[in-house]
């Protein structure tokens, strides 16, 4: 981005858009910024290097060298761990650069895992994978704060997600819920808050803006046990939490691609709603109110209300956006609409249409072609889903398709025209 601007500078000067002085000022400004920031590429390669070396050590030790005696194998279990610890101690004591911290921390992370694995291997300790991963995560969690390491926080998130899936999804018969996951994710939240506070515009922060919703989305399903009917409600409520978080000015004022919450929330709500727009979904055998799933739903509902309430209190909400309230409508629908397929199906279809129109309106207001077409895409998806409902006449279905197709042309055309007239007005 900066280099493109710098390349354009001579052209701008030649065409008398800016003066030579302004051009020099711009150049010096970007150069001073560059020299302040640490060499990011170096950090990336350092971390990548130790990641690969660490994983390589795990694989080499997993060969199970038969020729070595038990004591030599035990020595090998500790050797990489001690090397990792010494390199971390060195980077702390010598106050080494960020690259050193990140790379040595990543290396130590993997050697901790390899040493426990090798000991289990030497003594044939049977693998309860989730306990093993939990021990590993807990032994490395303090490093996130001691080294102020982003990579270790990413590894923590990845491994706690793996841990929760291992407990919740891997064994169909087990009735375990990974409650521990909540405590484990709480460990890294302070690190994330620090990032949001001091480096909100950095790329690394936006990586976390995507990783947190991703991890939570993957894991929420492990909290669904006996009443999968309520799973849909839980997920709609979670996506709504994401959407409402993404609408907080702190995130909303950033570039859309950095706002993982908003994109996750919006896509999640739309996809789930589309799944529920089929009438077969609403035939439910039983609805139970006193179950783990309903308590989780209740908590998510309260979180939604709190975020919305706070947004009102701070006067952040200026215009009506259906996405932010869909969770209320949906919860009511869930309580009343189950076992009444007609009611549920009709209301969900109307809701999706309304969400599509809302999105188109937001896109038009913001002059954003991407959002506008996303809105149209929602409506198209709805129409395509209805295409499979065979009890609708072909004529009506045909008319719907033609209508949506035309609306694609028209809305984009009107927007383009508006944009042109705006540009012309600026020229004059």
């Amino acid at each position: 981005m900066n280099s493109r601007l710098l390349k354009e500078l001579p052209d701008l000067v030649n065409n008398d858009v800016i003066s030579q002085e302004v051009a020099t000022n711009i150049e010096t400004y970007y150069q001073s910024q560059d020299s302040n920031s640490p060499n990011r590429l170096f950090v990336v390669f350092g971390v990548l290097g130790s990641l690969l070396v660490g994983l390589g050590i795990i694989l080499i030790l997993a060969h199970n060298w038969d020729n070595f005696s038990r004591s030599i194998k035990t020595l090998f279990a500790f050797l990489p761990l001690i090397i990792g610890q010494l390199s971390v101690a060195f980077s702390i004591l010598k106050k080494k650069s960020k690259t050193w911290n990140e790379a040595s921390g990543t290396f130590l992370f993997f050697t901790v895992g390899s040493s426990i694995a090798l000991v289990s291997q030497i003594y044939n300790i049977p693998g309860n994978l989730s306990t093993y991963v939990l021990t590993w995560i807990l032994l490395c969690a303090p490093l996130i704060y001691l080294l102020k390491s982003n990579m270790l926080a990413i590894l923590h998130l990845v491994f706690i997600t793996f841990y929760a899936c291992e407990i919740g999804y891997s064994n169909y018969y087990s009735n375990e819920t990974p409650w521990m996951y909540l405590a484990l994710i709480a460990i890294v939240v302070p690190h994330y808050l620090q990032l949001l506070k001091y480096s909100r515009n950095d790329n690394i922060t936006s990586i976390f803006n995507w990783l947190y919703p991703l991890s939570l989305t993957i894991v929420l399903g492990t909290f669904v046990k006996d009443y999968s009917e309520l799973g849909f409600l839980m997920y709609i409520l979670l996506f709504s939490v994401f959407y409402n978080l993404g609408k907080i000015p702190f995130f909303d004022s950033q570039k859309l691609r950095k706002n993982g919450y908003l994109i996750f929330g919006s896509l999640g709500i739309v996809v789930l709603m589309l799944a529920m727009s089929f009438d077969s979904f609403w035939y439910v055998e039983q609805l139970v109110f006193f179950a783990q799933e309903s308590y989780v739903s209740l908590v998510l509902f309260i979180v939604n209300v709190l975020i919305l309430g706070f947004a009102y209190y701070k006067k952040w909400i200026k215009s009506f956006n259906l996405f932010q309230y869909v969770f209320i409508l949906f919860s009511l629908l869930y309580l009343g609409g189950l076992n009444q397929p007609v009611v549920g199906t009709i209301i969900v279809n109307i809701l999706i249409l309304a969400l599509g129109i809302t999105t188109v309106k937001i896109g038009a207001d913001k002059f954003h072609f991407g959002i506008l077409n996303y809105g149209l895409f929602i409506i198209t998806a709805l129409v395509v889903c209805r295409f499979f409902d065979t009890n609708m006449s072909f004529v009506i279905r045909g008319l719907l398709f033609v209508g949506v197709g035309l609306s694609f042309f028209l809305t984009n055309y009107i927007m383009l025209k508006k944009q042109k007239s705006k540009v012309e007005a600026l020229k004059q």
Partner: protein
Amino acid sequence: MKTKHIFILFIILAIVQLCIPAQMINHRESILKEGKVFKFKTEPVDPSDPFKGKYIYLNYELRSFKVDNVVWKPSQDIYISIINDSLGFAKASAIHEEAPKNGDFVMAKVDRYSSAKEVVRFTFPFNEFYMEESKAYDAEVAHRNAQRDSLPNSTYALVYIKEGEAVLSNVFINDIPIAEFVEK
């Protein structure tokens, strides 16, 4: 925080990181030293673990026990009293919900209770034996072959038992350690 404080905290963490595997080793070594040894007839199969490498999974012959009550739930921890049979292999003499006061016993997990046969099926926690990656599959084949040309099942696991906990020390085919048997 000052570097000194960070360093002290790191040293504490490093010690904990070293202690966990050390404690695992210590615990197992004490069972190997002080525990009583039993032979469990078994059958090896060959899976692998993403972190620990290849192991052979041991299907023990001793995996069910006849009972006359139905209190057994899946995944429940149970205690199995172990004695030697006339041929010197381990067999179960009783199963308990709580650890028995005397005799040798080992912990296991209930798979299920079959009401038709009135037996409890269970799994021992020492069913993974780690081998060099090239040998694990050969071990399974070797067992199958040994099975074919010799007397009934001659593959057994040597297990040390102390206060309910067990360490699997080695697996033998025809009294030869399985790693050597495979090399032959």
